[in-house]
Structures are given as structure tokens and as C-alpha cells.
């Protein structure tokens, strides 16, 4: 039995401890906001937070997450009004949308470490997240907008 805390809820799962967290979240917990894109840590579609850090859930064994705080897109903000989500709506970032949970989760972790990211900071932090539709210019604008929103909320 593996004990997880996910979006502030405690859950018990009887799965192999090697099972990557992604499949536990999607298939066992039926929370499908976190996506599969490569299964190899190369695309970022499966990004979740583990103790606040952005992690690729497709290559993170569930045993690693045991006892830690996991956050998925569904738990990022209870009203879906995280500053990034607000900015994402304003810039109409998504096209197909499939990569966007991962983009937002990755950007959220970046913003909590870097309140005012430059273009280069954003490129560096986000280059592990692929968007095949090509929403990068809007992601970049939206992240900058979210950083501003966050600063004005905090001040």
C-alpha cells in the first residue's frame, strides 16, 4: 500500500512501487489533467509538483512521492485562478491544449522560485516543455503577465 498526499487529500493505493506516478494519477485516481507525452522525461506534459518542485511524473516512481505533497493541475488553485491561469486566459494561450497542464505546472514552479523572470530565465526553465502546436510566444507573454499580477497581488 502506497500512501500519497495529492492536492491536500490523503490516498492509499495498492500498486507496484515502481509504477510511475503519472499512471497512478491518471489510471488509479482517474485525474486526467496530467498528460502523457513521451514517457521519458523529454516533453514535460506530465509535470506535477512534488513538495513544490516541478517533476516529470512519467519517470518518477510512485515510491519517491510517498509521504510528499503532490500537486496536479486540478489542485493548483481551487478556483482555477492562479495568476498563470488568469494570464493564460487573457492571452488565449492554448491551441489543442494537451501540453498546457504541464506548461502551467512547470511555469508555476518557476515563478515561485523567480518572481521576475527574464526572457532567458523563461527559455531556460521552460525548454523541457514541448508544445507541438506552437504556443511558445503566448506562453512567454503570459508568464510575464502572471509575474506582474503576482507582484501586484503581493504588494
Amino acid at each position, binding site marked *: 500500500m502506497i500512501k500519497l498526499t*495529492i*492536492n491536500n*487529500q490523503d490516498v492509499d493505493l495498492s500498486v*507496484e512501487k515502481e*509504477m*510511475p506516478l503519472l*499512471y497512478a494519477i*491518471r*489510471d*488509479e*485516481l*482517474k*485525474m*486526467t*489533467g*496530467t*498528460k*502523457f*507525452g*513521451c*514517457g*521519458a522525461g*523529454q*516533453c514535460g*506534459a506530465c509535470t506535477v509538483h512534488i513538495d513544490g518542485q516541478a517533476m516529470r511524473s512519467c519517470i518518477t516512481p510512485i515510491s519517491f512521492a510517498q509521504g510528499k505533497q503532490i500537486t*496536479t*493541475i*486540478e*489542485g*493548483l488553485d481551487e478556483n*482555477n485562478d492562479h495568476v498563470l*491561469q488568469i494570464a*493564460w*486566459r487573457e492571452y*488565449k494561450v*492554448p*491551441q*489543442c*491544449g*494537451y*501540453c*498546457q497542464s504541464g506548461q*502551467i505546472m512547470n511555469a508555476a514552479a518557476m515563478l515561485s522560485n523567480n518572481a521576475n523572470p527574464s526572457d532567458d530565465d523563461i*527559455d*531556460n526553465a*521552460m*525548454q*523541457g*516543455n*514541448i*508544445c*507541438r*502546436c*506552437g*504556443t*511558445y*510566444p*503566448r*506562453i*512567454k507573454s503570459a508568464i510575464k503577465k502572471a509575474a506582474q499580477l503576482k507582484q501586484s497581488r503581493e504588494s
Partner: protein
Amino acid sequence: MSTLNKVNDLQVVNVSRRRFIQGLGLGSGALVLGLSLPGFSALASGQSMKDKAEHALNFFVAIDDNGKTSIVCHRAEMGQGIHTSIPQMIADEMEADWAQVFMVQGKADKRYGAQGTAGSTSIRNQYIQMRQIGASARQMLEQAAANVWNVPLTQVTAQNHEVKNLSNGKTLNFGELAKAASQLTPPEAEKLTLKSPEQFKYIGKEVKLFNMDDIIAGKAIYAQDIQLPDMLIASIARPPVVGGKVESFDASEALKVKGVVEVIQLKERNYPVNVQPLSGVAVLATNTWAAHEGKKKLNIKWQDGENAVHNTKAYQQELIDKVNSKGISVRQKGDVYQHQFDESLTVEATYSVPYINHTPMETPSATAIVTGSGDDTKCTIWAGTQNPQWAQSLVAGELGLPQEKLENVALNLTLMGGAFGRKSKSDFIIEAVELAQKVKRPVKVVWTREDDIQHGFYHSISANYLKAQVTPEKGADFWLQRVTYPPIGWLFNDKQDRPNDNDLSLGFGDLPFELNNLICETQTVTTHIRTGWVRSVACINNGFALGSFVDELAVKANVPTRQMWLNLLGEDRMVDVKAEGFNYSNYGMDYSTHPIDIKRMKSLINLISDKANVEEALPENQGWGISFLRSFGSYVAAATKVEVSNKQVKVLEMHTAIDCGVAVTPDRVRSQMEGAMIFGLSITLMGEITTKDGRVEQSNFHDAPVTRMHQSPPMHVHIVDSQEPPGGVGEPGVPPIIPSITNAIFHASGIRIRHLPVNKTLSV
């Protein structure tokens, strides 16, 4: 009881789990259960409207007593925004209030008319029909109001979700009128008046986009997200060589993986390969990970068959050699072959493009349930498909159902996590159906990224050859061009051995230049692998070759590339390439609505050159490149600025200008152009699938890369304000991007890239 209802019943069983999921923050839209599954709307499922008090005015529009208006989008959403654009066109003519409009995804159903979402057709082919559907609903609501007030139709008018009595100012809202309106006979098409452009409220305007909020909240449902009680997940090992077969395998180790339930060999399939499954061995498990793990343990021996000879290295050289010798003419004017070329004024060049994979972010996936037998077999599917009716009919065939029993196959469309042409093929859907029928349980087939990259329907490997002589006034003449590649038609007819006229209509035989001497030729080839429509199709290679060659001519003539384009295009006129003997398909459109208009071409080339300021003075190692192509009914020009230092390319800035006639959803035209620039960057800089002994050599993003954020420069989109009939948007953005990048590289470094991708020559 229909299969559909059964599925509904199944879905509410697991109440505790449902509550649990809601506790996790998923809200009431419990994505996995019940009515929230895509396709379960009264309208879209063809169920009776009564119990919902929803009144259908036609097959696309239903209004409930409160005025809530459901509008069907019968086309499929893959990121292009059609879920918004179709309701936008209908709602505008209806005078519906956008805030009260809800989009309902239509299922596969021939009553919707053409449903294929491919070839950038959804708007360009249906701009009038969709508006007529809206106008018809509007007129029925007006008639219903006129009946209530007992006044002639001319005395009432619909406005913003209500109908107004012009003589006394009284109003009735759409909800109050819906029931009465639904009982009227729809007016005849001739009796409908469509709005004039200045009356549009939504067409061409910014509106709130459907799906946006769900996507951002992680609630949007894609094919991979379908979860049904009792469902098994299948991971399939497919023959690495097209046409290969399973010689032997061992299920025992796979069955030891916890969660694996069954191992099933799929049936063998024959040529032509069509869009049928490739066969192989499936591992079915209660979770995705177990299925994938089990697949690794099958120890399969394959019989490769005849296509094991396919090595792209040698094959590409073969194609290059072919286009360097005389071929089969498809269009001819004057006499190129008799001409004595003046070497000092002649440019001769061969270009090649490798296989390219679609690589949608969401790998192919489909879920199926099959019940019953014989003619009573019923099947329910959830899939992201660009071609629901084709899929439905192939599934019926798979189940042995006659075409009159098509409705036994209920095909629900989910959102697609990207498609780019991949999901117009139904192989993954048929796989799910084949397995679901065998195991008598719901089955979801899930492709890994490796599956997606190694078993695709690739953009064809190709070679283009061009030769022409520059001339003082016209830019150039004595134009000889050839192209060949394995044709997509081979899928359906394995005797097809060259691109046909339809294929050659994609940016090749429709060369619009004012030339006295021209010949366009193709060559025969042998096909060894599945090729298919990838965003922009053959316009990828033809656009690359043409855009590069015009730039090379400009260099030879020592004029700006803009000038060379303008010279070659010549006088403002409508070009008729059919009159020159080429059997041109014009993307299925008539010249009368979608002519080849030189004036629009020239103004786009000027627009992009001016907006991007491509003739500015630049540092030594920087350069601008431009290009242009009319395709899928739209006119697109692109400009790219790059820097090349130490054999490293950095893309600094990109512009795209599009004249697509009426832009129904301008923000989505813009986002498609942004996407096209990034898709074009991927093709140009790094897109390549190779084969060795018939097997694809790449497997995941590390060796089949696509553009990442740090490789994507600032981008600008210029949309021409136009009331011309709409052209396509999804596909035509890509072709001019590719040569704009390689031309820029030439102007920055003197290095001419004639063989894609760039990363074979320079770092990117």
C-alpha cells in the same frame, strides 16, 4: 436498449469513486463518468429533445425554454479553434447571444454532411452553409413570434436572443419562442437572407473561445482521458517494417506483470495497407503502465517481408537521381528542351525533404465497446479523429456490418491533443474495436511516443529539381521543374507509382509565373512505408523548393528577392493553369470563388517585405529570408531573420502575413500562423525520420526533436483585412516558412541549404 444507454448506466455505478474524485478538486464535471463524456448531448446523440425541454430547430441548433442555445460543431477540434468558429458563424446569423451559446461536439453522422477535418476545409467549404443554418433558425424564431403577435414576418426582427415586434416594440426571447419555432417547417434556402459583412456581430470579431477554461483547469477531455468501468488498456507491439508479420512470440513473461490481463495477437492485414492497423501483438492490462511493461516482455520474432529493403539514405539518392533526368510531363508551354541555356544566367538546383512525422502531443488513442453479434453488433467509440464518418464506415466494415447499419457504430469525438493529419487515419480506432470485440470489455488503445514515431503515416520523402535562366524583364524563363515522392495514394492502391495530378496540384503544377517556356514533370517510384497527409502535405516540399529557387534566381540576377517574386508573377491577372493543360484540382474549389489572383500574391509579398523590413542593412552574419505560397485557398508570405555564427543558427525574428479572405475567428487565425511558424521551424531545422532495413530509426523526442521554446523567436502575424470568400488556415501557413528560414541562412552565411533538415549542415 441501445449500447449508448448501456454505457450511461455503467457510468454511474462507482459512486464512491465519483465522490472521491470530486474531493480531489475536479468539481461536478466528473470527467470520467456519466453525461460529461463527450458526445452525450441530446442533440448530438439524436435522442429525443423532450426530456431536456430542448427544442431542435434543425440538426445543428436546439434551444431550451430558458434560451440556452446548443449549437453542434460537426467538425473536430485539434487546436485550430473550429469548436468556436462553427458556432460563431451560426450564432451570428441567428442573432443568438454568445453568452447563451453552448457548443456540442457532433458525433460521426452522415446527416451533418462532410465531417472530415482535413485540408483546411471547415470554413472555406462551409462558410455559406453554416450561416444558412443560422439564418434558417433565426427565421423560424421570427416566424414563431410573428404567429404569436399575428403580424407579417416583415414586422418582426431577431436581435440579440430575442425577437422584436417592430410596430409596438414588444419582445419575446428565444427561450419563449423555441418550442413553437421547432414545430415550423424550415424555410427554403432561397427564402433566407444572409447578413452583409457590416452586420456581423461575431464573424471576424473576438469572442470567448470554447474549451479554453477547461483546458486551463486541466478538465478538457482528450481521447487518452477516457476512463470506463471495467476497461482494459492495450499497448500494441507492431511490425517494425510495413507489411511485416509476427513469426512467434511468448506471452508468458508479459502475463506475469501485475495488472496484465490478456495477450492477444491481432489479425494479419493485406495490401493495400489502407488506414488499417498494422497487426502485431497487444497486451491488455488494468493500467497503462502494466500494458506498456508487458509489451516489452513479448519477445516477438518478426518476419519483415519485402519492405526491409528500405534504406532512406540510398532511397533519397534514388529520388534525387530521378528528378535529374527527364520525366513524365504534366504541364508544358513553349519549348524548354530546345533552349540553349546560357550557363552564366542559369540556376539549376535539386532540393530534398526527408520523411517527417506528425508527432501530435497526444499520441493516438481510442476507446471502444463492442456488444452483440452479427447484424446486431453494436459499437461505441470515443476517439480523437479528424475523419469520423470514414472511421465509422471502416469500423462497420471491421465488424461485418452492412453500410445501412452505420448507426450501430456510435463514434463520439473527443478533443484531439494535436493531429496535423495523423488522426485522419483510423488505424488506432480499428485496433481498439478489434480488441474490444475479442475481450468483450471496453478497451482503450494507447500509443507510446515510440509507437507514434515508428508507425506513422509520414510526410513523404521527396526530391524537387528546378532549372531556369534569368531574364532582364520577366525575372526568368525556360523553367524546368520536376518532383517525385512516394504518393499517399499507395495506401489505397499499391499499384500507384507516382504523384497524381491531385498531388501535383499542391504547389507544383499550379506555378503562377508569367513564363513563355515551362515544363513540369514527375517520375515513378516504389513505395515501402506508409505516407500520409501531414499539415500542408506536398506543399511542404514544393513550397520549400520553389521558395528557395526564387531566392537563388534573385541572387543570380543580383536583385532583392522581393523584386524577383514580383517580376516572376508579372501583370495583375487571374491565372488559369487548367488552360495550360494541367489538370489542376485547386484544393477542391472553383476558380469563381477561389481564383489564382496575382494581385493578391504581389500585395502579400510587398506586405511581408515592408512589415518585416527585410531590405534593412544588417550585420555581416545576419540575414532576412522571405517566401510565399498560395495553398488551400489562402495566400501566405513569410519572413525570417537569422544569425549564423560558428556554424550555429539562431532564429531572431519571424513574420507571417496571410490573406485568407474573411477571417472568421481572427485570434485563431493568428494562433494558427504562430503554430505554423513553429511547425515550420521544426521541419526546417530538425525534422527527419530515417529508415534502415525498413525500420524507422528514431524513437522519441531525443532523436526526433521538435522546436522548443528557446528555439522559438519573437513572432509577428499580419492578417489582411478581406471580404473575399474564406480560404484555409491550418495548412497554408507552413509552406512559405520553410524557405524563408533557409533563405535567411543563405543571406547570413552564404550557406545554401538544399537538403532538409538544417541540422545536418549547421547546429540549430
